[in-house]
């Protein structure tokens, strides 16, 4: 089983230096494209590879690039979205901390493909270690001539900067990220115009997820067919899956795209912790719909998870067990979303805090049956298109599926005016592995 993205991660997670990285074939893709693959051809290879964005939306990477006008004047921007703040998601962190040069290499490929001349790594504030490794790696790459003017004497220029955010979930949304990078409030922008036309500082811009970018060197080196064949399904490549929650071995693993949820939990995560049963899972972070026991054999790719009524999202699974209160679980998520709403549009700004208050009252035994109707009205009207961006619809996904699958828990809270899960205590004893 090939693990192109993680094969060079050491046991102690110390990142490879540039020299070490070059020894294992690092920057080969950059040499290859600069020697004579045109930007259009790079785009073609990536389109053929069927690489889909690993940030959660799953949009075709090559297709996204193709909207950038190649003939317009510079500057054009490439941005690595390393603002990983989706609750339960820690896959990019591994790549950022352990394989910084792989990211830089991927960014050069992407930047070249759209003929960008300036690039940014927009890094989550809390990723202090990653900030160090990336800073060092960018410096090394400049020294070695992979960044800067006239890269490898090809005539192609690319600058790269690290920008650390201030810790807003909203900045993971690409247009809010752009506003933040410009020094503005981190509110999303209306689309159209898309960033490919008017992005950072009003110039053509591509924002790609870290994991997406890390796939690129391997696609260039090994070809589109190879990448397609890595997968067990039609959605190509490998995927860094993660599992968190009360399982025996929470962690993250690079596996073929399409690995089943069951395999993730039972094989890689070592099954549920002793005495606990699986009740449900958020397949791709906090803003995805619950999957339940019936879905354990769902192949974890974009298409199959969508067919099961959820989204692959970031591919990092959050597990709900039978001793954890689903209402409290969801309330916790909605608290997060209420805190992180940027406050730009009405439904999100006012709706999610209302949802949080309702969930809180249900959990504390003060809920009313009509509150469930109010929750449902929010899940209906905080849907896509009604709010300014995808934030609120995402926030509603665990709630709407929670109401569907765990309705009896909600009703019991209201009828019994208490939370029966209150007294259960769980000892955390496991360590995360990758």
């Amino acid at each position, binding site marked *: 089983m090939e693990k192109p993205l993680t094969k060079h991660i050491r046991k102690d997670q110390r990142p490879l230096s540039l020299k070490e990285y070059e020894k294992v074939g690092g920057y080969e893709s950059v040499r290859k494209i600069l020697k004579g693959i045109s930007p259009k051809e790079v785009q073609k290879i990536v389109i053929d590879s069927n690489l889909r964005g690993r940030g959660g939306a799953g949009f075709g990477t090559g297709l996204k690039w193709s909207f950038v006008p190649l003939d317009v004047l510079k500057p054009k921007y490439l941005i690595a979205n390393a603002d990983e703040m989706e609750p339960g998601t820690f896959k990019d962190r591994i790549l950022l901390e352990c394989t910084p040069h792989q990211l830089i290499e991927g960014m050069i490929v992407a930047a070249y493909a759209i003929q960008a001349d300036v690039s940014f790594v927009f890094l989550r504030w809390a990723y202090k270690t990653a900030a160090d490794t990336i800073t060092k790696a960018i410096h090394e790459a400049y020294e070695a001539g992979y960044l800067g003017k006239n890269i490898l004497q090809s005539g192609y220029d690319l600058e790269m900067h690290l920008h650390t955010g201030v810790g*807003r979930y*909203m900045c993971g949304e690409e247009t809010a990220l752009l506003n933040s990078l410009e020094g503005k*409030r*981190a509110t999303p*922008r*209306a689309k*159209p*115009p898309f960033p490919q*036309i*008017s992005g950072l*500082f*009003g110039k053509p811009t591509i924002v790609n997820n870290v994991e997406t970018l890390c796939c690129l060197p391997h696609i260039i080196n090994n070809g589109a067919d190879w990448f397609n064949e890595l997968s067990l399904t039609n959605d190509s490549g490998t995927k860094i899956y993660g599992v968190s929650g009360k399982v025996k071995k929470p962690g993250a693993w690079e596996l073929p795209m399409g690995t089943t949820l069951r395999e993730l939990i039972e094989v890689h995560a070592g099954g549920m912790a002793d005495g606990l049963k699986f009740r449900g899972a958020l397949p791709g972070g906090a803003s995805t719909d619950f999957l339940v026991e019936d879905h354990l054999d769902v192949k974890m790719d974009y298409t199959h998870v969508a067919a099961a009524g959820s989204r692959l999202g970031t591919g990092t699974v959050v597990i709900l067990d039978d001793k954890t209160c689903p209402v409290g679980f969801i309330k916790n998520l909605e608290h997060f979303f*209420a*805190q*992180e*709403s*940027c*406050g*730009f*549009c*009405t*439904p999100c*700004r*006012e*709706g999610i*805090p*209302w949802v949080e*208050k309702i969930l809180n*009252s249900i959990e504390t035994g003060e809920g009313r049956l*009509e509150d469930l109707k*109010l929750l449902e*009205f929010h899940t209906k*009207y905080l849907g896509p*298109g*009604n*709010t*300014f961006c995808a934030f609120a619809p995402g926030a509603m996904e665990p709630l709407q599926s929670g109401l569907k699958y765990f309705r009896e828990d909600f009703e019991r809270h209201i009828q019994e005016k208490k939370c029966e899960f209150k007294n259960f205590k769980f000892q955390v004893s496991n360590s995360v592995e990758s």
Partner: protein
Amino acid sequence: MSTLYIDGKPFEVSSGKNLLETCLSLGFDLPYFCWHPALGSVGACRQCAVKVYKDENDKRGRLIMSCMEPVTNNQLISIDDVEAKEFRDHVIEWLMTNHPHDCAVCDEGGSCHLQDMTVMTGHSYRKFTYKKRTYKNQQLGPFINHEMNRCIQCYRCVRFYKDYAGGKDLDAFASRNKVYFGRHEDGVLESEFSGNLAEVCPTGVFTDKTLKQHYTRKWDLTMAPSICQHCSLGCNIIAGERYGSLRMIANRYHGEVNGYFLCDRGRFGYEYVNAPTRLKIPVFQNGSTEDVNITRLLKQISSLKGSTIIGIGSPRASLESNYVLKKLVGESNFYLGVSETDYRLTNLILEILSKGPARPYSMKDVEESDAVFVLGEDLTNTAPMLALAVRQSVRQQPLKKVESAKISLWNDAAARELIQNEKGPLFLGTIAFTKLEDVATSTCHASPDDLARIGFAVAHLIDPGSSPVNELTELEKSLAQNIANTLLKAERPVVISGSSSGSDAVIKAAANISAALQKKKSNSGIVLVVPECNSLGLGLIGGQSLAKAFDESAKGKVEAAIILENDLYRHATLPAVDKFISSTKNIVVLDHTINATTRKATILIPTGTFAEADGTLVNNEGRAQRFFQVYEPANGIKESWRWLIQLSEGLLEKNFNHWKNQADVIQSLAKEIEIVKGVDTIVPPPHVRINGQRVPRQSHRYSGRTSMLANINVSESKPPEDSDSSMSYTMEGFRGQPPSSMIPFFWSPGWNSVQSVNKYQEEVGASLRGGDPGLRLFNPGQNNSVKYFETIPEKFEAVKGKLLAVPLHHIFGSEELSSKSDAVSKRIPQAYVIINGEDASSLQASEGEEIKFEIDGQSYQLPVKISKEIQKGVVGIPIGFADVPYADLPAWAILKT
């Protein structure tokens, strides 16, 4: 054009506009908050949702925000769709989770867009049962009250204040449902346009603090269409009264003039009308008010019959009043009550505007100009709303990029994102720093003569047929070249100048540029700013200069002078006016407010302010506009022109008592003065009735009528009859939309806030139905045979021991009447002078230290501000300030130690 199907009905509409404005233009009621016709769309509030369908077979449709979607041909939408209605209702419900239930004590109540939209959506019961969020409010200065708890986070305040008006001290802070709109700390809002927040805010967060001092519900106001009196632009306003005092000024939309906004001087400068400085009863010499009644007063004046009486007119009095005075005293005895400089410059400007060849641009034209050259004017302080228009003009060229990127111009955030900080061409040549510099392409600061030289050089570069300028520095040459090239390249270039620097040469240079441009570009324009609200009107009526009057009086030939609404001490030096007054036996003053001249009157007749008078003003572009009396003043106070008609009965054999009303006066005037022909037709004559009815000044919701004067008389008194217009002082009358020139307030069923103006326009943002009111008097035709002004001033040279004193203007402080208003008076800065650093060091004066000098024999002692942005050898003096004596500037200041 496109066909748009709304709930199954087809409508022919223009393509490319957004669905919201299109629906509103068609007369549909669709609620919104964050969209504003002048600010465009951002999609924040989600209130204007409608359903859109892919085709006839699509029965489900999807919700979209109508403000964010362009109209496309054969589009199918539904406003009435159940889900769309439910969603709109829920948006209100969400907003109401935090909006307080304080309508009863909220200043906005009854004229609140949020109330209107709430009713429109049908939301009534709120299901939210938790605590509401609260904020701390800020002290924002004398104009604007802040009550953040009411905020619904529509973002319009910051979009107006920052994006539109260029303000820097109001912003959105924090995030989620804690977003806060205010300053970084308590303090006076710096923008000259802060008052618009009260109208831009859809609810009661930002409200008019001056109204709060004497609050009344807006539906309880008696209102009339009026014209702002505080600068020469003639912004259209609505003035409202209750219990005999003027309570509020609001914007009255005019598509060509002021659009949706007003400046703070215009909005808050009205309080002089109610101030203790108002004159309410006639006064005889020595301040004696004993036994003064009108009969005695008129008798006293009649005794002057046959003697030489001169009349001194006023640039802040109406055409009517000036005209009647001129008729009363006779052509040869009529003097325009303005300084020698203003007299000369106003006549020069009249000549330029009336002869052309360039067309006087309206403010709307300026907004749409793609290259602007401002020569000699500090617009923010001399004509504030024009500065706001210029601020929009710098977006014109960058907006072309937006169009070519296929981004709709109304898609405001996207357009601004693409434009970034790019600005179209704006060149400023001013005496000192001006606030428009943050958007200017390049700026130069110089003495009036040097500014004029650059202007002449630009004209010469555009058309070598105009006179060349010698001895320019390299810097000046390249600046002139850059300006000339840019203006020539533009599609709609405009040159803006005016009389505020006191220089003929500056105005002539501007005229040469516009004439040269007009030769090459038929679409170019010129704007010339004049000192006061009716400076041009006074100039059109015509008369001799004030100095001539002084000369006549010095010869002892003048028995009496009738001074019309004019403080002569603001137009001539103190010794000169004193001398004139002491050598004239009878000083009859008609005015409404105490000033230095009224104190010297032998007979003082109290007159109505603009709010208590009917009249016509001519603004700086030559647009004649009518203002209507808002309320009948107490104590028999009348318009000046009415008093003057009455005086004619005692003074003239052939008197004017056949002039019964304003219409009679203006008709006579229109017949007599060729250039103002038609000025009597700008409003319907007073006998006109609509469906047999007058247009009421009071809304149908007006309350308390039967009881409000019950302390005086229990029977309700008969409302005054208005003989000057077809409006009434009651709530009864025609309830439809009146003619555009006679809109006393904007109201439409379901639309109680200022947003109801949408219903009065041909289409959103266009002219009022029936055309924007007023009459443009100057419409020069194509005339390329224009003669250039040829005299070019010498290069300015600093003179040892002297500084050239030049006038500086302040939005708050330089204008007479607004300075007497409480709120505005709090914003008047301390008097000062500005000098260059080099002059400061040779005077050994440091910042804040006082320097002494003399102008025209008058002594000055004022603290110094040191600036790089004023030419060496020049001293800038704020004019109109109480503690800065008048001098006819520019003039040499002789330094004293």
